[in-house]
């Protein structure tokens, strides 16, 4: 069965520190991969997506993610976190059936 795992339920970082959110997937083939962000009380906003090609993907708000086939991972990174980045982050994967499978999310807290 297809699955997406986000091992960290909650991460706290200091403003200005670097950030890495982990995502692992289990699929029959290389899936399409996405990172979404959800601010409190809001819907989800797409940060970035990976389909093929360059394994380092740039997204909005200064985020990037790296696809590593050997590790079945698609980790999200940001070199310097801002207080406005506090939110919940979801990794998602999709295959040929046009359906997305989401991870359970990682809640990011940013300390001043």
């Amino acid at each position: 069965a297809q699955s997406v795992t986000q091992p960290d339920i909650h991460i706290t970082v200091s403003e200005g520190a670097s950030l890495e959110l982990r995502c692992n997937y289990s699929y029959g083939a290389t899936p399409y991969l996405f990172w979404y962000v959800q601010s409190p009380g809001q819907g989800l906003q797409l940060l970035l997506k990976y389909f093929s090609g360059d394994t380092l993907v740039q997204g909005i708000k200064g985020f990037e993610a790296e696809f590593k086939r050997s590790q079945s991972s698609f980790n999200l990174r940001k070199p310097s976190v801002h207080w406005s980045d506090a939110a919940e982050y979801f990794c998602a994967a999709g295959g040929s059936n046009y359906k997305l499978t989401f991870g359970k999310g990682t809640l990011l807290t940013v300390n001043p």
Partner: protein
Amino acid sequence: DAGITQSPRHKVTETGTPVTLRCHQTENHRYMYWYRQDPGHGLRLIHYSYGVKDTDKGEVSDGYSVSRSKTEDFLLTLESATSSQTSVYFCAISESGGLRETQYFGPGTRLLVL
């Protein structure tokens, strides 16, 4: 922001009553989706539609039905609400349904079933 609205935004209802949630889009996108979001579960697909009158089940479709009589509207109905259906419901749309197409999400509906 994609033109997606959901109504109502908040609803409290009693067990056993029918509930209908509405998703309305102004983008003329072909695909529409209903997800539910629960703590510790992320988002799970309930039903989706790939055109007017064309719908299919997602992974948590039991207890839910959907209808799409117009491109712009996708309705989610809980025939007889249960407490386990207390959740936040999100509608999403995508232009073609292919996963190269981004799914855009609405603001969500908070449903409490007492």
